[in-house]
């Protein structure tokens, strides 16, 4: 079994897909990081010219903000749920002051999280599709399926080794995204910022944002959580693409179908958000990270648990279908 997986990994590497993905990532991350740095520099210089040459005195502004927030905490009539999140805000601002960091400075940790947040709905699935779409269908179009199936291993083992290889490579892609966006943005920003405290754990209860259970974590921990969610989404996309690749025999068709459902799904969510059934479509549940920041409820009744469950069901059903089809179908090559 292990040697079968090794065989599949070797095939993926031979197709030089990881290199393609790495190049795509470096180009995109480089562009974004440069853009962010440029925008930041421009803001600062604009501000400095507006106060006629004086340097941007953010520290007194931040200190003032801290004082105001402290005043709010001390007041007995502060709305019930807000104290915890205000305390974290104060801690965050104090972090900026003690590290001599302007709060709007782009940091590596922040960029790495933002990149995942932005790419999770389309770019990340795209990378996974590059990996997964031709996994089975190319065996048919290259006629190598004969060689594969004439070996003395059952068909389900062949398919399982392909899937496990895909899961491994997906994990590597997520790691690659983290390393590349961290490394490249560090070159541009020069600030790590991994220990900055932030607040998470907001919830929507009855249509209003509830901050009762807000907790304080560092950027690094938050980054880990965000990438874990990205990984989960990638596995789900990989499983679905895997099924499509097993169903159709042309790679181009497989890519076409999965891309159409991804983009079509975004439209569906946009136009038909009142229609309850849309929330059971996998594309509507891709943006898991938004649940962490509490700014998200695309359709009434959706939560992180709900989305994770929906994606799990889609993944499992996809796998069942692909195993069923692959072991039953006639191979006429």
């Amino acid at each position, binding site marked *: 079994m292990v040697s079968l997986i090794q065989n599949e990994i070797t095939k993926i590497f031979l197709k030089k897909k990881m290199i393609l993905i790495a190049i795509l990532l470096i180009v995109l991350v480089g562009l974004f990081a440069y853009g962010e740095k440029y925008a930041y520099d421009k803001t600062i210089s604009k501000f400095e010219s507006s106060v006629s040459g004086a340097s941007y005195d953010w520290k007194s502004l931040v200190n003032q903000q801290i004082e105001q927030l402290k005043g709010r905490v001390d007041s007995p009539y502060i709305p019930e749920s807000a104290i915890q999140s205000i305390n974290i805000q104060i801690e965050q601002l104090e972090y900026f002051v003690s590290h001599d960091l302007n709060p709007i400075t782009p940091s590596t940790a922040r960029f790495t999280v933002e990149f995942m947040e932005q790419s999770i709905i389309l770019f990340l699935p795209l990378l996974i599709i590059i990996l997964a779409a031709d996994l089975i269908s190319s065996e048919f179009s290259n006629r190598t399926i004969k060689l594969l199936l004439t070996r003395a291993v059952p068909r389900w083992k062949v398919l399982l080794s392909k899937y496990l290889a895909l899961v491994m490579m997906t994990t590597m892609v997520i790691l690659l995204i983290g390393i590349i966006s961290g490394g490249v943005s560090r070159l541009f920003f020069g600030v790590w910022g991994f220990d900055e405290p932030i607040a998470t754990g907001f919830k929507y209860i009855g249509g209003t944002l509830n901050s009762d259970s807000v907790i304080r974590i560092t950027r690094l921990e938050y980054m*880990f959580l965000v990438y874990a969610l990205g990984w989960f989404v990638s596995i789900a996309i990989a499983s679905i693409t895997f099924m499509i690749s097993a169903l159709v025999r042309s790679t181009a068709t497989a890519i076409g179908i999965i891309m159409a459902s991804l983009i079509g799904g975004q439209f569906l969510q946009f136009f038909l958000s009142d229609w309850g059934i849309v929330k059971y479509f996998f594309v509507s549940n891709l943006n898991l990270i938004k649940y962490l920041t509490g700014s998200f409820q695309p359709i009434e009744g959706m939560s992180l648990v709900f989305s994770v469950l929906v994606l799990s069901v889609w993944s499992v059903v996809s796998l069942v279908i692909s195993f069923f089809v692959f072991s039953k179908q006639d191979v006429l090559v």
Partner: protein
Amino acid sequence: MNKKILWLILFVFSIVIAVGFIIGIVTTIHITTSTQNGEMTKSNIETSIEKTNSVFKSADNLNILVIGDSIGAGVGDETSMGLGKGYALKLNDNSKSTEVINLSVPGAKTEDLLAVIQNTETDAFLIQSHMVMISIGGNDIKSLLDNEASTLSIDYEELLTQYLSDLKVILNAIKAKNADTQIVFIGLYNPYGDKVDMEKIELLLNMNYKTSLLVDSYSSSVYIPTYDLFKYHLDAYLTIDDFHPNAAGYSAIVDRIISVVLSDEMRQ
């Protein structure tokens, strides 16, 4: 051989990371569904409310209740008197002792004030008060003035509707609990001077106008404009944060309140 080791590293590595990610997912689910912290903060707040739960000492005094945002709380006032105490001091009425209780929350928006009013703890203060000073609305419109939004007018309409309906509920609640109390509503001034465009100032003035219409529809209620007071005196009346009034600014507002309200009281 070399290839085999590389492969083994890749294999073990990806399994370890995958397990790590699974732990991460479980953690995020735990974070977004847990309620432990919530209970903790709730009990904190209950005790802090009890601490200040002292009602006016006597109904015979002139009892002034100040509610609202940072202006009500007296943020920026070097003498830390704020509107209520400043008014009491200038009133200087020897026949009656004056007591001021301030329930203002810096940073409060209208919805926060609504929560304060609807809290049953506030009832006792309201019932015994002779005058309620309200300063609210500044934080509602502040974000609109600070940010450049293409949807400014739509956002503003939405905000104004919500603000007016909340304020109506607040004023109704005050009058329902104590019909005799005098409501003094402090209007908004423009702390930005000409740094903000005319379009936005118009929104502020419109909000003031709508507020005055609403406030004046209630019995023994008065709207105190402050926009004109501050217009030419921003340097003199604003504290170092260029947003809140300083002692002189508060004193100017108090003077205006006295000139509006006191003649009435003196005649009694």
